[in-house]
């Protein structure tokens, strides 16, 4: 089916929880809601599910308005961060429960439960009780229950957040594949940029109840249309720098001037905010298309294959990504260079004014 949110809003008293959200979700697609805690991900999902009613706007499933339709009459399934299973029912009965409620014939239930169990590798655990399962197995049971309903709209609210890192990696691999085969619309909420990239599909970035950008995941990453989308889609956090461009120079806060190199040379005069990810900052002397900054190492974090060097440049602390193990010590004086051709430029309103990635992705 196609699911449409048409100017959906939700206010509680004076507070605006969801601010005028319009989206069209197509059959068989993965839609990632990316935003920090309290950005409205769960609230938006509850509105889509029909658990809460919007104060403004309408919802359509395949062109039919469902805004006021009761939850149980909608084709929707939801998986929560905190896995929910019936403690007194076996895994089999937990998975079967929505089908029993719907009055599906026993033989059909058996076929569907076993199929879902096979997908989620629960076949050998069907007789167990939830208390006898690990966290990952419990969440897989909850996911199987969502799967077995064959709902047109499947809402996954940070479904892997409470699981071990490695288990998350594995389930994240499997989930899109499992649900893709059902042809459902998937909506997946996460706070993590890397998770969005791994899931692919379409990403919807959220901030304070507003959608800041919608687009193919890799494109939103490479071409954030505004500083809010860039911030939410950067891990390590986006490094930022305010500049005032005039002629061949850019002036920094504090008055230092640098040459307007690379992509910056083509900007109209005015005030801008540069946003650049850790991989656009390198320790070393400035080159022809980069901006150089003296700084002091605050801390170095080594991940095994890469080092994240946090450098205080006086205008803030930036994170630089260096390949391999780099043992910079706190207090070390270093020169960092920012590649002007890999910098997003935002105007005073926070809208993208220039990006190096346009040429590459066009």
């Amino acid at each position: 089916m196609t699911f449409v949110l048409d100017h959906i809003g939700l206010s509680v008293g004076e507070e605006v929880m969801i601010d005028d959200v319009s989206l069209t979700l197509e059959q068989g697609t993965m839609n990632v809601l990316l935003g920090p805690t309290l950005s409205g991900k769960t609230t938006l999902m509850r509105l889509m599910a029909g658990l809460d009613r919007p104060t403004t706007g309408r919802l359509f499933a395949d062109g039919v308005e469902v805004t006021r339709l009761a939850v149980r009459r909608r084709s929707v399934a939801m998986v929560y961060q905190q896995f929910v299973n019936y403690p007194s029912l076996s895994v089999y009965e937990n998975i079967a429960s929505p089908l029993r409620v719907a009055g599906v014939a026993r033989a059909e239930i058996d076929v569907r439960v076993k199929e879902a169990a096979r997908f989620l590798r629960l076949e050998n655990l069907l007789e167990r009780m939830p208390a006898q399962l690990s966290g990952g197995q419990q969440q897989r049971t909850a996911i199987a229950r969502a799967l077995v309903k064959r709902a047109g709209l499947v809402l996954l609210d940070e479904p892997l957040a409470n699981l071990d890192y490695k288990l998350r990696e594995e389930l994240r691999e499997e989930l899109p594949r499992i649900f893709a085969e059902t042809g459902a619309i998937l909506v997946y909420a996460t706070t993590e940029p890397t998770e969005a990239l791994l899931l692919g599909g379409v990403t919807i970035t959220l901030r304070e109840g507003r959608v800041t950008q919608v687009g193919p995941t890799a494109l939103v990453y490479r071409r954030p249309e505004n500083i809010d989308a860039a911030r939410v889609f950067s891990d390590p956090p986006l490094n930022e720098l305010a500049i005032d461009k005039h002629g061949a120079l850019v002036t920094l806060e504090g008055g230092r001037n640098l040459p307007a190199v690379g992509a910056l040379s083509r900007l109209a005069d005015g005030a801008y905010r540069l946003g650049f990810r850790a991989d656009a900052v390198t320790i070393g002397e400035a080159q022809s298309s980069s901006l150089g900054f003296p700084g002091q190492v605050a801390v170095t974090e080594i991940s095994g294959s890469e080092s994240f060097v946090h450098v205080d440049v006086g205008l803030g602390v930036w994170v630089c990504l260096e390949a391999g193990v780099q043992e910079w010590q706190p207090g070390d004086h270093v020169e960092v260079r920012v590649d002007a051709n890999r910098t997003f430029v935002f105007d005073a309103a926070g809208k993208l004014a220039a990006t190096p990635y346009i040429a590459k992705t066009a």
Partner: protein
Amino acid sequence: MARITLDGIAHAYNGNPRSDKDYALKPLHHVWEQGMAYALLGPSGCGKTTLLNIISGLVIPSEGRLLFDKTDVTNLPTEQRNIAQVFQFPVIYDTMTVAENLAFPLKNRRLPKVVIEKRVAEIAEMLDLTRVLNRRARGLTADAKQKISLGRGLVRADVSAVLFDEPLTVIDPALKWELRSKLKAVHRALDLLMIYVTHDQIEALTFADKVVVMNDGKAVQIGTPADLFERPEHTFVGYFIGSPGMNLLPAKVSGSSALVEGAEIHLGAAYPALPKGGRIQIGVRPDYTMLTQSGGLPVQVRRIADLGRKRLAYVNLGAHQVVATVPPEMSSVAHQTRVTFDPAHTHVYVDDLRVAGAAA
């Protein structure tokens, strides 16, 4: 101030272990040095929390001795161990100000007022809490509260160790970066022994000087982040560290070459005398497994994941699944292509344990 010695520490919850399987924590010998940061890393059920609880005194080990410097503390209750602890969720007094919260562990020890004030100011400065020192804790955000919790754990200069139990679980990704680097900077500034439990490899690797990788009740490797990444001593470490983990493939090894899926690959070292009868695998991380158009072994591409700063290819090599890096200059990826393994980073494992090669 102390070093902690684990002298054959082991634990079985049923009290009467008959086989290896009965141990939640298998016998462990290790010394943790003053001023260092250690992370206990592993999946749930690996024994990391049991080990932390033994150090804090919540669990008395069924075997072995725990020494803080030369003092045997194995049977001492928590309050006599002189340790500080930080938990998953903030443990603070909502009605007190931030300053009072930070001062609390020091007031309890009846330290002079000037000493308390100086230390509270110092810790607040490190954690960026100076501006909110006089605010009540109640109105603060979850991450500010967790910062106070961290501060309370770090405020005492005389503790034997500070124990952290998954302290960043409730923190948003962007703030995690900030808190993690703060914690690391604080560790640099203060001469404290820190022990940090987590299942998140990024947290463990970026925080710790040494990481204890645990699986199934056993410490399978203790090493620096670079050790664990470059030379996993156990296939579990190869799998668990790195995201995705190491590629492991059954192989026949002779001298300095290996036969993988019927094709010969070159190893960076020679393995003249591998133990007979063992299960032999080669292990190469995705970072050192490259897609290529010529040379290498033939593979079928299942899918490409675009991770922004790099692309990974999930491929089939015969019956085996392998993850490879797509070189930046490769613009389009054919379904049928090839992979190469960097010989310098290709390891040989016999029954899951790494075998050191000789110069080839």
